């Protein structure tokens, strides 16, 4: 199995624990991830200028197609932006015209319907690799761990871009991936709610309160970790958990793991290779609990 890996802006600079663990897991599973020179997906500036955002996505789609590989995105917002751009460019001639005006004038290129398959890393593990195969490769079952999953917004929604994959209201693929490691995936209220990350730059207070709500619920439920698959969710629940601990009376202590970090432990990968030093909330208790 071989894919063009789409890292986006946030992961290779701010959340390299996600990248490091994803590469380590892919290597261990025999999945080749190729870097083909992608750039920003466009998502961050879509609110300001959608034509520019779609132009960026279009150039990335071209690179994926030129490499003749399926594109695997670590960031669900990047993945969604690429899928959405391909969808809009396939339907809306005005946008194609606007995008191609911009691209021919400023980049010397043109979008010609390039439309490689784009999927999220977790979906790739779930659909292309398969949970049964993962189960067979687990060397260190995480039996006894109580895990909450946070699927986030762009992994399964909008369903119009993810036809036939999972459920927009009650997503379960990430839970199955967690259970493939031997851990238990526990249910909790408003699991499919947003972390608030995308409004951090608009109203920090609201964004933090959104993240805090989930941390409060999970503290009630009592979990060993929250497992997620999006760098913005990671920043909100991990970094901001630590920050909120310095601001609030109530202290949270919920380790936040990227799914590949959890899977990596189960596959017997050296924790040094899984980037735990970057995590803001210490995972040492969890590692002790599973005996690594």
């Amino acid at each position, binding site marked *: 199995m071989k894919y063009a890996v789409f*890292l986006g*802006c*946030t992961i*290779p*600079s*701010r959340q*390299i624990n996600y*990248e*490091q663990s994803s*590469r380590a897991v892919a290597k261990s599973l025999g999945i080749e991830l190729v*870097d083909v*020179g*992608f*750039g*920003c997906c466009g998502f*961050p*500036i*879509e*609110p*300001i*200028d*959608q034509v*520019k955002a779609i*132009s*960026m996505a279009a*150039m990335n789609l071209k690179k994926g197609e030129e490499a003749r590989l399926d594109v695997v995105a670590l960031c669900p917002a990047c993945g969604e932006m690429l899928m959405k751009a391909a969808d*809009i460019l396939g*339907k*809306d001639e005005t*946008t194609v015209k606007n995008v191609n005006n*911009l*691209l021919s*004038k*400023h*980049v010397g*290129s043109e979008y010609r319907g390039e439309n490689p398959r784009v999927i999220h890393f977790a979906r790739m593990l779930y659909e292309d690799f398969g949970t049964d195969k993962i189960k067979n490769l687990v060397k260190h079952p995480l039996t006894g761990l109580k895990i909450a999953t946070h699927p986030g*917004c*762009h992994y399964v*929604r*909008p*369903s119009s871009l993810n036809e036939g994959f999972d459920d*927009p*209201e009650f997503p379960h693929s990430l839970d199955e991936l967690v259970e493939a490691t031997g851990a238990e995936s526990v249910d909790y209220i*408003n699991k*499919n*709610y*947003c972390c*608030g*990350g*995308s*409004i951090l*730059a*608009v*109203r920090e207070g*609201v964004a933090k*309160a*959104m993240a805090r*709500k989930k941390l409060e619920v999970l503290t009630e439920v009592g979990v060993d970790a929250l497992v997620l698959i999006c760098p913005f969710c990671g920043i909100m629940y991990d970094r901001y958990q630590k920050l909120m601990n310095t601001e609030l009376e109530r202290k949270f202590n919920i380790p936040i793991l990227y799914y590949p970090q959890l899977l990596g432990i189960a596959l017997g990968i050296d924790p040094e290779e899984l*980037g735990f030093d970057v995590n803001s909330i210490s995972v040492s208790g969890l590692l002790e609990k599973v005996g690594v």
Partner: protein
Amino acid sequence: MKLSGAVVDISKVDTRFLRKLARELGSSNLSKCFQCGVCVASCPVRWIEAEFNPRRIMKLAKLGLKDLVLQNDFIWLCSMCFMCQERCPQDVRPPEVMTVLRNIAAEEGIAPPNLMKLVDMLSENGRVYPIDDFIEDERADKGLPEVVAKPDFIMKIAEAGK
């Protein structure tokens, strides 16, 4: 009962704004919004910030009341979570409407400065978070492959028309 939030003055309808919306809306169906409020009930931002009301934003936009839509930061508070989009019985696609409204506001220079800055970041670095020497060293230490520090096609697109 306080009605001030519900009553609007339709003498302020902006027909140019309505025409622009009609042109830009693409696959969303703003005109079909029948004000059921399912979007409000589904909204995680509303859960925290009671003043945020996607139903009302749809109503004001549909009526062409541009000044009222843009008079506060509400259109920027939608987190693009798509919960309402999944549940809206009329396939209005509120987050897509928000994007169109945001683009119109940005054109008029009334976007949050933090978001405007992102375009400059992308034209300067080709990335929202630059890859500096420190990060390059950290990546090398961890055995991570080199990435293109400044993708030039992104810089050119971000710079276009500036």
